[in-house]
């Protein structure tokens, strides 16, 4: 097949809603875009372990401790699926780590905010996982097969996490004065950053056309954000929490909630590395990596020795 016909074949598959597989030909742009998106997503899962891991040692009951551990572990698992999916595109996990550790690759900015009270475990689950799901559900039908299949597993677990987070919030909201105050405080701190998770306004969001065509994206940032706002306002009512947005109100005409202006300078500032925890999060990952070097070296050396011994044993037997 000629280059042209490869492209034609690829386009046909995309247009007919078929999946592209690892062995299939794909345009360079497609591969690069996917590697960037999947690895960024994987990094987000791994860095995302830190703000919640921060409360494992202090969880208020044994049940909550176990649930939180399991949740953070699930995030590690998501990271694992996603790194594997990216690896099918010809990049190694070590290379991706290196991009993360040198600041070349990004991860979701939401994890650059601190978790300050136990209520943050509720708010993160409810809002951050909630926003993540909205972003991610469409990806379960994305065009690249390995990514789509990873996302199916991810989304299933995420929606479980989101319910757990909501349940923590509900318990607090139904609790004592101070528990309600904790819940409201966490809501206040996480609400706006959650809205930012959907990315810049469509007007400023570049490269959406190809992404939509390739089913790496199905809805625009603003569409997803609106959906999230609409759903969350109703959930906040159930919790009896105040929306941290004085401009929020139902717009009969649009059939949606209007909401206040997002502080985009803050968003870009956090993306640039100036969030409250950017340095701390990256340092934690780098430190884990550096301190683990001798462990990985040992594992490699041992695997080599074992393979050599096996080979020698086979030879001896054969001789």
């Amino acid at each position, binding site marked *: 097949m000629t280059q042209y016909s490869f492209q034609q074949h690829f386009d046909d598959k995309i247009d007919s809603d078929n999946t592209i597989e690892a062995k299939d030909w794909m345009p360079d742009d497609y591969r690069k875009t996917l590697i960037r998106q999947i690895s960024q997503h994987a990094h987000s899962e791994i860095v995302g372990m830190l703000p919640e891991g921060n409360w494992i040692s*202090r969880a*208020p*009951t044994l049940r909550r401790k176990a649930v939180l551990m399991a949740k953070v572990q699930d995030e*590690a698992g998501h990271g694992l699926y996603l790194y594997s999916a990216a690896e099918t595109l010809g990049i190694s996990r070590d290379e991706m780590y290196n991009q993360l550790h040198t600041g070349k690759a990004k991860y979701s900015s939401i994890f650059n905010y601190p978790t300050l009270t136990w209520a943050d475990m509720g708010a993160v689950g409810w809002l951050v996982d909630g926003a993540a799901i909205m972003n991610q559900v469409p990806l379960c039908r994305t065009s690249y097969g390995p990514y789509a299949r990873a996302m199916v597993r991810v989304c299933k677990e995420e929606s479980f996490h989101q319910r757990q987070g909501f349940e923590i919030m509900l318990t607090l909201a139904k609790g004592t004065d101070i528990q309600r105050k904790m819940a409201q405080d966490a809501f206040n701190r996480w609400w706006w950053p959650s809205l930012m998770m959907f990315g810049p306004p469509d007007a400023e969001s570049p490269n959406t056309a190809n992404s939509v065509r390739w089913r790496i994206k199905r809805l625009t940032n603003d569409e997803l954000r609106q959906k999230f706002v609409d759903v969350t306002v109703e959930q906040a009512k159930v919790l009896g929490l105040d929306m941290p947005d004085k401009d929020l109100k139902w717009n009969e005409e649009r059939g949606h909630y209007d909401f206040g202006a997002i502080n985009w300078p803050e968003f870009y500032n956090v993306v640039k590395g100036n969030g409250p925890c950017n340095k701390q999060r990256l340092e934690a990952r780098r430190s884990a990596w550096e301190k683990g070097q001798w462990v*990985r070296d040992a594992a490699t050396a041992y695997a080599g020795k074992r393979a050599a011994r096996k080979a020698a044993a086979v030879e001896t037997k054969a001789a």
Partner: protein
Amino acid sequence: MKLPYILRLADDALIIGQRLGEWTGHGPILEQDIALTNAALDHVGRARSLYQYAAEVFNQLPKEQQLTYFTSMAIQEKIKAGESIDEDTLAYLRDGWDFKNVLLVERPNIDWAYTVARGFFFDAFNFFYFTALSKSTDATIAAVAEKSLKEVTYHLRWSSEWVIRLGDGTDESHEKMQLAINETWPFTGELFVATDYEAAMTAEGVAPNLQQIQTLWTARVNEVLDEATLTLPAAGAWMQQGGKKGIHTEELGYMLTELQFMQRTYPNMQW
């Protein structure tokens, strides 16, 4: 004698679970981060079952005995208010000296080799111990042991593999692993010294005979260390003890401060 015995089992599980949980998100290899958190979850799960059982036993004691059983004022206040206690009461409201875990499990993580060494000695113990304990005359304890046996079989395989991998890996890993074995070793003796309450439970057929466990444990430890090209400290090395009787290392205080922070700061709430 059964209540302190159940607490002793539960405290081991909680404290090692808390320690392993400190690794979550900071492991040297993603797959191993997951594996350690898995083990942490198993331990916390076992702690919960055992604390639930301990709470059940405690709640059946006469009230005047309940009142003096633990020094914790928070627990005494619950009793006075006519409340029963639960798993969280035992984990979150007891004072340090009422914890009966062995010193081994409160040892700090330090590095991957120390974590593996601590895990290996403890997993090997649990493996033989739970095997025997699954035949306990106490049906609840037997059931917990039975369930835990599957988990600990996996833990032991995992930690044995890592002892071997590090011992027989690079020069650096060999040295680190040997150091970790040497430094952790003095904390293993306590596992096999029966307290009064353990001896009483052994006499009743509730608990295994620790000497028999030690024989099996020693053989397995030697076997794995041999394969790992590692050596054990000379026989007769001094052994630290105290944990089973509530005399701990300075580490436990810091662990409990963190572990109990929420319940101590915001008492009597539902979470």
